[in-house]
């Protein structure tokens, strides 16, 4: 493991993987330069299979901090580009920013302040600007991102692997080296795969609004379908890498909706027919939008995306047999170490809250007296529990425990329900 030179301690290296987007790349670095980001911060641009325009655009301006361009030829994808940047970085904290992001003011300072010597993973919000005169697709994309951040900014949110967005992410360099960087075999969902390893290493997460930026993303319909297929395939790869995490992946779940189940069957059993259906549906989506039929549009769009995900998974996994093999592998895989906190349902909430903070369990084992009732919140894809999770505004944990208490009290005293 390399050590940080003395003059670079407490500093940030901004790593920007880029692929032929010189305009937005320069916009990003300009924001950093205009917001008082000063040395010893540095910016590493990893030009992933770029034309010389990228290096020229960066070199054409003078920056108040060192900016280096690392060439990666031919293109090997953003995950390997980020790893290359991390190897070359000198700062204590690695801040990854995608090249289509326009950071909010003082993003480097914000991430530096949040780390402040603490071993944290800071997730900045890559917020999509609300598109003007937006079509249904753009509006749905914008709302999807906003929904993710609404969830993550709630106090007491229990972070999971799927909250790790690499658009704006910072990690202490030594922790990064311990993790081994991004998995270079993945071309998609490499952030979620990293998230699983972070969760497994019991990382602490912080979501930062101020440490975010505007995400100027291209959202054409073709690209979305392709992306969804890639996600299905990537989930298969992740399940093979981490069988213990299989049941946290969408891959492990079907849908109770018989129509969705039918779409999944088509993706596995009649892919050509399904592909034909998707092409028709994509044309119909335009018609539905022209007629402003939102509900029908959402359903059809959801169906197309669902098909694309499962088609990608089926192709990568080898059909039903492949999916079953993943399931079997998950069932027989050696489970990661899971801390279980035994919770006596008769204990008071304040004690439970304190014990959650002290022990940071992954699972709650419920009991009343000597009677074991079962487990709660056993999700290997989520961070260990904290006392703050009891105070989440949705109070899911409190409600679940309250229900468990009520059931337990009925079991121990069945007449209690009818007592006047």
């Amino acid at each position, binding site marked *: 493991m390399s050590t940080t030179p003395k003059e670079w301690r407490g500093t940030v290296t901004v790593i920007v993987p880029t692929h032929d987007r010189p305009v937005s790349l320069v916009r990003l670095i300009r924001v950093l330069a205009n917001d008082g980001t000063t040395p010893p911060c540095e910016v590493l641009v990893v030009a992933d299979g770029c034309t010389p325009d990228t290096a020229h655009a960066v070199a054409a301006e003078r920056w108040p901090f060192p900016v280096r361009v690392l060439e990666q030829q031919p293109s090997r994808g953003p995950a390997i580009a980020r790893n290359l940047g991390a190897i070359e970085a000198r700062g204590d904290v690695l801040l990854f920013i995608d090249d289509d992001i326009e950071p909010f003011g003082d993003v480097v300072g914000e991430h530096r302040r949040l780390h402040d010597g603490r071993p944290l993973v800071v997730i900045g919000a890559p917020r999509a600007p609300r598109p003007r005169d937006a079509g249904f697709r753009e509006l749905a994309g914008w709302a999807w991102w906003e929904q993710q951040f609404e969830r993550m900014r709630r106090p007491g949110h229990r972070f999971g692997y799927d909250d790790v967005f690499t658009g704006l992410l910072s990690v202490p360099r030594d922790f990064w080296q311990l993790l081994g960087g991004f998995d270079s075999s993945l071309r998609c969902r490499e952030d979620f795969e990293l998230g699983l390893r972070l969760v497994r290493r019991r990382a602490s997460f912080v979501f930062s609004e101020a440490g975010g930026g505007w995400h100027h993303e291209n959202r054409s319909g073709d690209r979305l379908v392709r992306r969804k297929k890639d996600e299905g395939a990537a989930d298969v790869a992740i399940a093979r890498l981490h069988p213990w995490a299989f049941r946290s992946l969408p891959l492990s779940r079907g849908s109770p909706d018989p129509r969705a189940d039918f779409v999944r069957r088509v993706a596995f059993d009649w892919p050509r027919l399904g592909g034909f259906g998707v092409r028709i549906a994509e044309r119909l989506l335009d018609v539905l939008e022209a007629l*402003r039929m939102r509900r029908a549009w959402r359903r059809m769009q959801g169906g197309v995306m669902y098909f694309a995900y499962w088609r990608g998974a089926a192709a990568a996994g080898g059909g039903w047999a492949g999916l079953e093999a993943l399931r079997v592998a998950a069932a027989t895989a050696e489970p990661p170490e899971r801390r279980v906190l035994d919770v006596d349902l008769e204990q008071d909430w304040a004690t439970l809250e304190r014990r959650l903070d002290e022990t940071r369990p992954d699972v709650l084992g419920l009991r009343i007296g000597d009677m074991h009732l079962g487990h709660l919140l056993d999700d290997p894809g989520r961070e260990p529990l904290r006392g703050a999770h009891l105070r989440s505004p949705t109070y899911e944990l409190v409600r679940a425990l309250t229900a468990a208490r009520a059931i337990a009290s009925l079991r121990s005293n069945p007449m209690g329900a009818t007592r006047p």
Partner: protein
Amino acid sequence: MATAVLQLDASDSSREIGGLQSYGAALILIRRGAVPVALFTLPVTGGRVDGRALRSAVAEQGGERLVSLEALENLGCSAALSLEGRAATVAVCTRDRPEDLDRCLTALRALASTGQELLVIDNASGGDGTRLVVDRHPGVRYVREDRPGLDIARNRALREARGEIVAFCDDDAVPDPHWLGALLGGFDGPRTLCVTGLTLPLELETAAQECFERTNAFSRGLDRRRFDGAAHDPFLVGRIGAGVNMALRKSVLDLIGPFDEALDAGTATKSGGDHDMFTRILLAGYCIVYEPGAISHHRHRRDWQGLRDTVRGYGTGVYAQLTKHLLEGREPRAIGIALGWGVAQLRNLLRSLAKRPDAPPLDLVLGEMRGCLAGPHAYRVAKRRLRVTSVAGTRPATVAPGARQ
């Protein structure tokens, strides 16, 4: 006989209630602190509400909420909200109702203080009555708006407000002391542009008021709900709430545009300005939260003619608003909603003609149907009048659906 409107704390709800000799029933809201947990109507016999019936209704309707609240309170997560840093303006748009306004302002001055600004928009009142009432309430800012129209007054309030959030209260409403705090607490993220609250009757003393509560009640239940423009039908806004009890971010002016001044009271369209705003918020992909902890009491019209006019105005406003979205927003969904309303009206008409016990009175149904039929023309008339006003030198705010200023 009239219906008593009562509020009880959950800890106080196991005893018999007496002293209700002049009432035949009681509409009872059960609360635990500021949080409403049950709402039901019980018969009054011999001036009393039976204690056993009361206990049973509380357990049946509020039991689950009470258990959850108790658990949260044990954790120290009370429903009391931290409102620091939320600058708010409470705006009352009023026209020639000094008595109602006086009662409303008295209630507003009793609100838990968050440093809010109190603002009265006097919307072209005839005399000095409104100003004199405001003068009696220190700390209330008076603004005169000479152009008549509720939406014109609302827009003026949004422009005048110093707070980041503007809570609107009708002059004939009496908000609860926790009302503003609950509304402000409902703004759970930057995408939430509007919060509505639970509106209950102030009194149910006359047949007209009881009929209104039975057929057009403002209450939307005791569960907090979030209407997300990304998922919710933007034209099904009736279940969200009403302008009598709502708060908006001031930024709505930039993000969505002002209220449509061709809609609502004071124009030919009679109503619909609030629902038009809800629709536009949802069309733009933003969210509206219904927060039942924000309780306000509305004095329904006491006389039958007033009730008939109100219900007819609702019909006019709904169809005026749908006409606007169909013609200006090119939203065919408006036709579906209009047809749905039409079918519901016909069903009500048949039930009234068949004299079904729960049917709305025939004259109200006919009045609402006439209002619906008048809606499209009323919108055209209102827009034409606005254009005339515009020529006369003032700038109207008519906003195409989904458009921003």
